[in-house]
């Protein structure tokens, strides 16, 4: 319990520190680290998700159609509500946790254990500035980009492949989709995915820089904690967003567009 409270306090401190130190991205080595993070998290992950994302859309439509025996109208609504708003950001977040979160927490824990964070301090370089800020900012940007990419592939894949499994043409699905979709859907999913990226990177940086033991054994322990807590953070944020957007906003004064 005490450890959990300490970790929450550490996470809050780290978030405030990161938010206050964003101008440090102007320094060339920090900017380079930020770009490297965007490349690793976004670009290198993108090739691996093409097939999975394309099949995601058609799979969800095909299963739901089969269960509900629904028409093209419902298929497009499912594509919009489930794939675009929920599954896209969640799938991107899971890819980021599994690829980037593990690598990041292991890398930082190794740096801490081998004294490299002390070496940075002796060079007058703040660990927060050089190690945390570019990673958090990079993962936020890359998660949003990866989400948009997965959404595009899933929706396009769903529309192109669905006519093979349901009684609807591509044109019909396409027209209905663009009738229903609103800018708020994109804004919602991009904002949510940026929050996912923020939470994942922050959790992984925190556990990487604070491994439970300063020995080699501390690395896998730090990675395990980082991954499990990142997943919990993502699911919590997702639930909060769903409540805010699909429930009522500002005590019922504003109703979300559905």
């Amino acid at each position, binding site marked *: 319990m005490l450890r959990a409270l300490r970790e929450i306090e550490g996470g809050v401190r780290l978030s405030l520190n990161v938010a206050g130190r964003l101008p440090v991205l102007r320094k060339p*080595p*920090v900017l380079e680290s930020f770009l490297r993070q965007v490349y690793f998290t976004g670009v290198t992950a993108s090739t691996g998700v093409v097939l999975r994302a394309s099949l995601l859309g058609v799979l969800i439509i095909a299963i739901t159609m089969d269960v509900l025996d629904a028409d093209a109208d419902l298929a497009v609504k499912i594509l919009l509500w489930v794939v675009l708003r929920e599954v896209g950001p969640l799938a991107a977040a899971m890819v980021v946790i599994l690829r980037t979160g593990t690598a990041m927490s292991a890398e930082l824990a190794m740096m801490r254990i081998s004294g490299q964070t*002390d070496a940075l301090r*002796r*060079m007058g370089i703040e660990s927060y500035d050089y190690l945390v800020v570019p990673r958090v900012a990079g993962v936020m940007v890359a998660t949003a980009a990866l989400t948009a990419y997965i959404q595009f592939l899933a929706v396009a894949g769903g529309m192109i492949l669905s006519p093979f499994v349901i009684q609807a043409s591509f044109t019909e699905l396409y027209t209905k989709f663009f009738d229903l979709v609103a800018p708020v859907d994109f804004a919602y999913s991009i904002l949510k995915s940026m929050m996912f990226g923020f939470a994942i990177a922050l959790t992984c940086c925190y556990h990487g820089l604070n491994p439970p033991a300063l020995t080699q054994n501390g690395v896998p322990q730090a990675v395990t904690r980082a991954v499990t807590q990142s997943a919990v953070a993502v699911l919590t944020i997702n639930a909060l967003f769903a409540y805010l957007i699909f429930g009522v906003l500002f005590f019922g004064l504003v109703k979300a567009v559905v």
Partner: protein
Amino acid sequence: MSALALRYDLRRDGLAPVSLAVPGGVTQRVRLPDAEARARLVGAVLSTRCAANEELELFGEPVRGLRAAGRGRLHDRIGVVTQAMGLISNLNAWENISLEAAYHGTQPVARIARTARDALESLGTEPSAFLARLPDEMDLFERKLVAFVRLLAKEPALALIDSLGEGLNREQAARAARFEAEYRARQPEGTLLFVDLAEEASQ
């Protein structure tokens, strides 16, 4: 006589005290009695701080009671090659060399690149392939070479090189001996301090 670049005193219970005075603009070799004394001296210079039983003056300025800005100003004038300030394992040689100077903005990146290429060529290493290598792909001499070029990139008025010959074979030690001339060629007015243990130096 030129002003002192470094003055250091360490008092220890039951052990020999350490007292150093290094004039500005010279190359001096210091042999310290034990590893603890060496770690304390290097640590004090690196952090520009001293403990209660230490006294440290850099360029005539006592570091005790200095504010962060004063410490930062002194830190910018000092370069150190030591095991305690090793290389960052996920950065290649070029990134390790440029990191400190580029982060603090003490030198433009183009100037750091020129210094790194010239120094490596002068020390008998082909720069383009070497600069792309990671620390894990280097031997001990090469890691010391990167740390030394990182020091040169900073253009420090005081350079401290800790245990340069430690762990090097005869051929590598001969190459490392050229570091002094390389520093002197770039910083004719600078102060170069080699720190070794008494028993290492006598071997």
